[in-house]
């Protein structure tokens, strides 16, 4: 467990002195449902990437060939460390390639 900082250790006025450290705030733990992309159904339209508020959709230069033989240079994947599970991507995907599945099934 991380040592808890006291009021004496914190930067004055709560300033954040280290740029980009929000990366270390793993908001993925907030999730109850996770988005799962069906790479065969995805048409690489980039809409989920644009709408994700986190942003937890990664646009990767990773070639992919669908079962039907269509080839793409890009692949969209989820950064599950930061995806909050809000479901916006699934809602916005025009071809319904994203499904929200329960994080933990009882």
């Amino acid at each position, binding site marked *: 467990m991380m040592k808890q900082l*006291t009021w004496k250790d914190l930067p*004055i006025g709560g*300033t*954040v002195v280290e740029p980009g450290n929000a990366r270390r705030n793993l908001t993925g733990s907030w999730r109850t449902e996770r988005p799962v992309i069906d790479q065969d159904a995805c048409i690489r339209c980039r809409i989920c990437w644009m709408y994700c508020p986190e942003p937890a959709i990664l646009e990767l230069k990773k070639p992919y060939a669908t079962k039907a033989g269509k080839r793409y240079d890009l692949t969209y994947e989820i950064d599950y460390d930061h995806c909050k599970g809000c479901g916006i991507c699934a809602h916005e995907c025009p071809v319904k390639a994203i499904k929200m599945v329960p994080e933990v099934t009882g």
Partner: protein
Amino acid sequence: MAVAKALSTREEVVKERVGLTSNYAAAYAVKTVDVDVIAAYPITPQTTIIEKLAEFVANGEIDAEYIPVESEHSALSAVVGAAATGARVFTATSAQGLEFMHEVLYIASGLRLPIVMAAPGRALSAPISIHGDYQDIMSARDSGWVIMIASSAQEVYDSIIMAYRIAEDNRVLLPVMVSYDGFLMSHTTEPVELYHEEYVRKFTPRNLNRPRLDPRKPMTIGVIASPDWYYEIKYQAINALKESKNVIKETHNEFNKAFGTNYDIVEKYMLDDADYVLITYGGASSGNAKEAARRARERGLRAGVLRLRLFRPFPTDEVVSAIKYSKVVAVVDRALSPGNTYEGPVFNDVVSALYNKGINKPVISVVHGISQRTMLSDDFYNLYKKLDEYAKTGEYPRKTIFIGLRGGEA
């Protein structure tokens, strides 16, 4: 010897003696300390400060940005932003304007920004009143600012110079408000000795050794804090305010040395052997109270006055040691704390200061001078006589006394 030295210091540092209102004295102080950014919105009785400053900037007498804003909320927000970059800033307001700034008051202190503000005190609406009292200042009481209350135009000038040094001190880093009587001081002319710029600049060197926005060294100011951080960051600020008292005293001492003055965080008048003490703040009340104390002494009452120069952090030790040996104390408030056990806000501070030191003595809560209702020396003289009567009978009022209220109290 000490006096001779003080006189020669004074001769050296004083450039000229001019007639100024307290508002103009504030503007001259801002001019002499060399500020970078001024943002303010005019509101009575503060307007003439920023008119004067606008004139200084327009004439090129101050090398500062003057930001004309559309409200007090924006005025304080603009100086918050400027101070976050390390700029030396100034704003001024009163009454409804201070209320309109209220949200940002907490932001300024929470972000630990060394902002200096002049705030001539004024009554709050409704009913609408442009006249002076300290209701606006009292409602800023818990916002985490250092609050000083001056009692002469000279003191306004001197306090604003000291305020920059206090605010920017690394052990403080808090906004400082310099208050004084609306109209009775803000608009009346008194002789003020202005200092040579070089001495003031030497006394208020820029201290940039603090967190500030700089594109070469990116950082974030004004983040959200979740419940597991907010409490600690807030405690930092309230602790800094409490600890600032030592820095404020130190600054007073150094100012006295550099400018040949004699300031302390409380002012004691005929207190050494006083049986009956009036605790006051601001200008008019203190002058008349002192005159009343002189008259009371002529008639055999051992009277004295304690004036608060520092209101936040409250000078607990200094107040208690000044009134420890007196018989009866009356706190004369020029503001109201409606619905409290006693309606005088500073009365409550004085009582808790005494309680803190385990002292139980008769303290009377008095309200006077609301919306600039005239407070005559006669009123204070009669108050001394009353304190004497109470002491003789041993019966003390268990409620706030509203002096000069037509129709008497309910």
